[in-house]
């Protein structure tokens, strides 16, 4: 499974756009890139998933360059409630296991 590297923490202010970049140099051909969000005392929650180019949903956008060795989660106009830990994961198709490898994530702090 591909290892991911992302910043430990980021600070932002309400109303700003936040971009969190994750590197995954060893991504395999059949790997998808998935981002989860975790609030204190809760389990992680799926935000967005992509394979290549750009994906957008009501919560975020995910940008993936052609080489797929990195990805960027973009949160438009963050609010205080976006303060959380964000995890970038890359999972491969393995017929024996489908575990997710979580790193330490990026702790986003949004200030008023």
């Amino acid at each position, binding site marked *: 499974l591909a290892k991911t590297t992302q910043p430990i923490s980021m600070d932002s202010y309400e109303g700003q756009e936040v971009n969190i970049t994750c590197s995954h140099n060893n991504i395999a051909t*059949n*790997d*998808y890139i*998935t981002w989860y969000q975790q609030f204190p*005392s*809760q*389990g*992680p*929650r*799926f935000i967005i*998933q992509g394979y290549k180019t750009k994906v957008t949903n009501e919560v975020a956008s995910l940008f993936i360059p052609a080489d797929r060795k990195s990805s960027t989660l973009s949160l438009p106009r963050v609010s205080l409630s976006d303060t959380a830990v964000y*995890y970038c994961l890359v*999972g*491969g*198709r393995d017929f*024996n*296991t*489908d*575990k*997710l*490898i*979580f*790193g*330490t*994530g990026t702790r986003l702090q949004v200030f008023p």
Partner: protein
Amino acid sequence: GAGVSQSPSNKVTEKGKDVELRCDPISGHTALYWYRQSLGQGLEFLIYFQGNSAPDKSGLPSDRFSAERTGGSVSTLTIQRTQQEDSAVYLCASSLASFSKNIQYFGAGTRLSVL
């Protein structure tokens, strides 16, 4: 239920006691996962079930840890002779199937404190 349910939400036990943690996955989800999260840390994979079988037990930290799943639904994680280092939040997740594009849905976890 609508989501993944875990019980108890909190468990305080004494060192050396056995504990059982329960997970009710989303109905119809064939894959079930257990993770452990220590304070301020990322998630550590423990075990994965596909149906009632566990193809991957590689994350279980010692033979004091075991898990089972019955009827392709409820799963129980058992920790025998608990140690203080077992204190953590134990998270369960389920997904529709086991493949690369799956999305895992997590419960709120069981916070285990070993005194």
